[in-house]
């Protein structure tokens, strides 16, 4: 439901695809309203797969796919869903999409499927996906829901890719399995075992949140 009724002319005009309002829907979750660092959602799987860049990219793509399509589908049938089974229907839509992603991954990229393992299935419980469905898709048009999905998806993606970048670089000395330090002549770079481990993930994410929140000025109380 659009809240922009002020500028409406007597004859309803079609809103341009990249209107200011829509741009805001997309850009808000990238920084000011970032799902991970501000809304505190989707942390779970974000940390576990970020040991290396490659699985993280697959994860990011999968999550964006699931958020966008579940937003779209939910928004399309939002007037048909009975209130009592709302949550279950949302869960069913998400579970189906995640199953699709998992089956395709198993068929065409078995190596990554093995690396990601159970974490593909855990996209279902990724709070961001459910969160967007409840907060946005249930009450907005399909077009807007797609944009919101893309925004939240990318907001999530850039955070986990940044964490993965540092964890792989300092934990294994490589980026996308390319041995960076070896190539620049520092072959005995002391890789930090903590980075590869859960602890490194928490620390990097904590620091990233600190930087991001200081820049946007968001303070939690």
């Amino acid at each position, binding site marked *: 439901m659009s809240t922009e009724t002020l500028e409406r002319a007597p004859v309803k005009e079609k809103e341009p695809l990249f209107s200011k309002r829509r741009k805001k829907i997309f850009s808000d979750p990238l920084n000011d309203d970032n799902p991970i660092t501000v809304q505190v959602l989707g942390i779970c799987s974000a940390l576990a797969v970020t040991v290396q860049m490659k699985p993280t990219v697959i994860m990011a793509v999968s999550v964006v796919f699931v958020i966008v399509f579940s937003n779209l589908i939910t928004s399309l049938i939002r007037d048909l*869903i*009975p209130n009592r089974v709302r949550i279950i229907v949302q869960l069913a839509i998400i579970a189906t999409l995640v199953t*699709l992603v998992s089956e395709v991954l198993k068929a065409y990229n*078995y190596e990554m499927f093995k690396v990601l393992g159970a974490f593909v299935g855990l996209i279902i419980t990724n709070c961001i996906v459910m969160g967007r469905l409840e907060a946005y898709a249930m009450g907005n048009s399909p077009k807007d829901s797609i944009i919101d999905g893309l925004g939240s998806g990318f907001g999530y993606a850039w955070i986990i890719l940044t964490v993965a970048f540092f964890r792989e670089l300092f*934990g*294994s000395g490589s980026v996308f399995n390319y041995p960076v330090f070896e190539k620049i002549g520092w072959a005995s770079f002391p890789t930090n075992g903590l980075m590869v481990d859960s602890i490194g993930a928490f620390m990097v994410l904590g620091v990233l949140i600190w930087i991001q929140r200081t820049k946007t000025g968001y303070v939690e109380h």
Partner: protein
Amino acid sequence: MRQSNAYVLLFTAAMTIIIGGTLSVTNQVLKPAQMRSIELDSKTSILKAVMTINKGDDVLAIYKSQISGLVVDIDGQNIETDAKGAPIFADKVNILRNYKKDPKDREYPVYKFSSADNPGGVDAYIFPLYGSGLWNGIFGYVALEKDLNTIKGVSFGHVGETPGLGARISSPEIQDRYIGKTIFDENGTLTSVTMLKGEKRDPSAFGPHEVDGMSGATITAKGVNAMLDQYLHSYEKYIKSIKQQEEI
């Protein structure tokens, strides 16, 4: 009307049919590709123990023409059917599930490898392995030369060892250390090959039954040692029976 019981039931029934239908169709369509991926994955691991696999290689064709599998029990006797009476195949045996059984009750696959210029002959024997590393399972294959004493190669995998430490067992650097080592000593006792603690990096410092360790990954190394030792002892009766046959 939208909130009435009848509508809710109708809606959920419709959803169930649509979801069930979509997933079933996807599954049917993707199943061949999935089975192929899984097959490719396990056959590549087996072949990696005896040769280097390059990106463009037709793994399935190589496997088909150069590997033949059979299953034996702890006494080295051939097993044709499983507990339920169904025919048993080497590559269908679930190693993890068998690992949980008592070693006396396990099914032990054996893969015989013939090199490209010796079709029909056996140039290597490959045995699957399973064990526990530091965090989770470790597994792989050990390949023995025709003499069933010298190691032709190993290929190791792991579920979740630490990258840079325990995870090194899947790197060629570590696996190459086993090539040429022997598992029986001069008296004919099975001693397996042990990975030592610490890392000296001087290949001449090790005997025929020892390999250099991994610095910082002692627990994983111990897991590998235990795994090799246990499985080689389990296959010992089979190995001895083949050696006896050769001598005849």
